[in-house]
């Protein structure tokens, strides 16, 4: 765009025939025409910059919007919901006057290009969403997916991503309390780096992103604005990039966790003094997003002088300033008489803060540069009235073939020896192996409130020292299940996270999700997406856990090959007293092991089918949400009443995987008896949902059985905590030492 003369609104009106590079900025022809129609003239360069980033897939959700509505339409009645979808993050009431906000987001593409910085800035971004709600961030989680464990590029991507998440989160002082690490060749060129954060506040501290009150000042604070990731939001999210063409690689953003730590402290101090009317973090689409969202959510308009934005690079054009994705910046709306105090607090924390504009009583967003008006728009048309696509979708023709390829018919182990070998192979497989090489690079202890962290079923944080009130979070997703059946796969992801939260003794309350899919322009992918959303919305309704917010990441695909559909679900739960939490590790020899739930022959998408047969086909385990709810109730009651000393949910890898993990963690073995009516193979490897293993002290045996009986939950005694082997009677006994070597050796060996 030519710099002379300045492309003001006036100039644009006078020069209707000037060609603008709308296509390069990622807009489609009809989208550009829509902009012209809205404005009644051609846009200025700056306006085009704003529309193009804000109307990108990433910011506008144009392909996903029509489906995501179900989360609202089907939302269950919940007293806990304080702020729902649409804000930076949802907020739920957890009692005693506390509110909790949490959200999961993706930073997939940037993490492939530059693993360390991509992942680091992913953490930075989600944490700013949490601060923007008025909360103190208290923990992070990181659901991750990489290509094949032994692929050379995984050695580049994984250590960088892990170091980036750790480098940023550790430096911010946020304990990392959970996540996932999954390997699958389908993620080779498209690793999934999802990051979640939780924040805690008092009810009265909830803040929203809106600019109200004419005359109120708009303050930009945090890092200076540089040329980072310009256009990243639109270019990254609007098309696949092809790593053979490095010229298409966007400028990456570099994070400064120290700056963000200062941002947290100074923002919280400003909140505490009630200095802030509205607040918005700067993430994707930078100032374009922050100004248009603040203005369109508020009652008035907004006038901004772009010359006042502190720059790191004085050569930036106004368009670039508007699109810059420089990290560690926030925008606050402050009453004029409180501005001085706000700036003082920023100065105390060495944070640069500048008044860049004010709220007006009109309804326009006007932006000035060098004295000329370069933006004059209705902010709603930028922020909320972007294009909405009803993309075509169709069940792919291969779906039937895939489902017909029944995993239950795969050859099973024929001898005890074979069974034993397969158990060892399973617990050593990259997806089932211990992730401690990764999680030991994360601080679990900082803030001094961590009750449970990796490798527990859910992370748990104490939020009140006096009463012991706490919250728990688990994230889960199984792309293999979702590939076989996206509707039920999404429900299984929710069911697993829900179960994980309940297993630790917390009551599941609400959901956030990160929906990672391929290209929405492929009807098959769009069908997967539609099915997954429908499945998740239906299941949330049935379980009574509303979706409070989340994130969609599309175009995770290399050429024609899309990733497995991968809905990742985070469930947040609450526990009245963290002293009652239930850990995974076996605590005491002699305690009785019970299997809760029904075990069926269900091997479709299972870890066993992957590890032993490299197979994906058939149907995923059956979903029974009423059963999940009952199981959760039992686990929560048992924890509250002290009837169980340890518990572990059953998911990928089945019962044997869970028992081995509890045994290794507790340093105590188990003697298992195959129950009547089941064969050893199904008992050990089936992945039927709605199950958990619990260890019951002998003194509680009767009470526990009575409770399960009274409520109608199938419960089977399967053995006892004992010795230093995992002994499946009549089949094999594996020493803990051998299991430990298999389970803990894999990941370090792969990444050395």
């Amino acid at each position, binding site marked *: 765009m030519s710099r002379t003369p300045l492309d003001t609104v006036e100039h644009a009106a006078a020069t209707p025939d000037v060609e603008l590079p709308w296509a390069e900025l990622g807009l489609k022809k009809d989208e550009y025409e829509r902009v012209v129609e809205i404005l009644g003239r051609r846009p200025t360069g700056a306006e085009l910059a704003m529309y193009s980033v804000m109307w990108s897939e990433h910011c506008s959700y144009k392909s996903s919007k029509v489906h995501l509505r179900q989360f609202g339409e089907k939302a269950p009645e919940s007293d806990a919901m304080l702020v729902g979808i649409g804000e930076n993050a949802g907020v739920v009431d957890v009692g005693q006057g506390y509110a909790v906000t949490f959200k999961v987001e993706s930073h997939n593409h940037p993490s492939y290009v530059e693993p360390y910085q991509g992942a680091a800035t992913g953490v930075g971004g989600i944490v700013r969403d949490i601060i923007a709600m008025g909360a103190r961030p208290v923990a992070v989680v990181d659901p991750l997916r990489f290509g094949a464990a032994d692929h050379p590029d995984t050695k580049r991507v994984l250590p960088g991503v892990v170091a980036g998440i750790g480098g940023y989160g550790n430096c911010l002082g946020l304990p990392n309390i959970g996540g996932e690490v999954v390997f699958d060749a389908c993620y080779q060129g498209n690793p999934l780096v999802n990051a979640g954060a939780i924040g805690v506040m008092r009810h009265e501290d909830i803040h929203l992103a809106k600019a109200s009150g004419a005359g109120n000042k708009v303050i930009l604070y945090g890092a200076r604005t540089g*040329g*980072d990731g310009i256009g990243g939001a639109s270019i990254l999210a609007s098309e696949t990039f092809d790593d053979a063409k490095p010229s298409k*690689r966007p400028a*990456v953003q*570099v994070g400064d966790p*120290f700056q963000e730590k200062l941002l947290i402290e100074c923002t919280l101090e400003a909140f505490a003094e009630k200095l802030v009317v509205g607040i918005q973090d700067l993430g994707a689409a930078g100032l374009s997003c922050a100004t248009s969202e603040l203005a369109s959510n508020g009652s008035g308009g907004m006038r901004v002088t772009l010359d006042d934005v502190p720059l790191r690079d004085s050569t930036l054009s106004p368009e670039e300033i508007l699109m810059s994705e420089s990290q560690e910046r926030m925008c606050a709306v402050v009453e004029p008489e409180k501005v001085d105090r706000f700036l003082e607090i920023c100065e105390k924390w060495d944070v640069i803060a500048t008044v860049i504009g004010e709220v007006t009583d009109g309804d326009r967003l006007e932006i000035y540069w060098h004295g000329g008006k370069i933006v004059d728009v209705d902010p709603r048309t930028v922020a909320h009235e972007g294009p909405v696509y009803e993309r075509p979708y169709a069940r792919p023709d291969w779906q039937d073939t895939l489902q017909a390829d029944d995993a239950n018919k795969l050859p099973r182990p024929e001898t005890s020896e074979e069974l034993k070998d397969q158990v060892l192979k399973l617990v050593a497989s990259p997806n089932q192996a211990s992730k401690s090489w990764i999680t030991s690079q994360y601080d679990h202890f900082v803030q001094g409130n961590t009750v449970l962290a990796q490798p527990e079923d859910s992370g748990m944080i104490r939020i009140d020292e006096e009463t012991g009130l706490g919250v728990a979070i688990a994230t889960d997703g199984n792309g293999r299940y979702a590939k076989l059946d996206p509707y039920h796969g999404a429900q299984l992801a929710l069911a697993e996270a829900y179960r994980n939260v309940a297993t630790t003794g917390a009551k599941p309350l609400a959901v956030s999700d990160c929906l990672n899919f391929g290209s929405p322009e492929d009807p098959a992918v769009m069908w997967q997406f539609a099915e997954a959303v429908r499945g998740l919305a239906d299941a949330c309704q049935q379980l009574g856990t509303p979706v409070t917010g989340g994130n969609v990441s599309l175009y995770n695909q290399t050429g024609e090959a899309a990733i497995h559909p991968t809905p990742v679900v985070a469930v947040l739960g609450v526990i009245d007293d963290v002293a009652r939490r239930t850990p995974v590790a076996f605590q005491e020899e002699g305690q009785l092991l019970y299997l809760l739930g029904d075990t069926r022959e269900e091997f479709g998408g299972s870890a066993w089918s992957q590890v032993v047969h490299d197979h994906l086909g058939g149907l995923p385990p059956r979903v029974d949400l009423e059963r999940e709810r009952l199981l959760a109730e039992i686990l929560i009651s048992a924890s509250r009443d002290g009837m169980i000393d340890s518990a572990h949910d059953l998911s990928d890898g089945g019962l044997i995987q869970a028992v081995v993990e509890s045994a290794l963690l507790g340093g105590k073995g188990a003697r298992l008896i195959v129950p009547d009516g089941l064969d050893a193979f199904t008992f050990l490897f089936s992945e039927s949902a709605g199950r958990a293993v619990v260890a019951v002290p002998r003194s509680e045996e009767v009470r526990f059985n009575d409770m399960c009986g009274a409520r109608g939950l199938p419960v089977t005694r399967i053995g006892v905590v004992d010795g230093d082997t995992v002994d499946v009677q009549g089949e094999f006994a594996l020493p803990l030492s051998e299991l430990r070597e298999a389970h803990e050796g894999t990941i370090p060996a792969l990444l050395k």
Partner: protein
Amino acid sequence: MARVVVDVMLKPEILDPQGQAVQRALPRLGFDGISDVRQGKRFELEVDGPVDEAALARIHDLAESFLANTVIEDFTIRVEEVAEAAK
């Protein structure tokens, strides 16, 4: 044996939090008159044998593929002839 030095610096347009932190500390230490600080890495490679064209080409490859992250960093390579003025 010769020494080859590879200097790796963040590209000018990339944020350098470390350099910034150092620069911001200078006034407190009583230093003024320094308008910018950038911090990078210096690698000293001891090369067996002669540092000829071929060796330099290989070191260039090494720097490009491993020592520097060219997504965000630039590098320069030079053969160090004599010890520089030591402190």
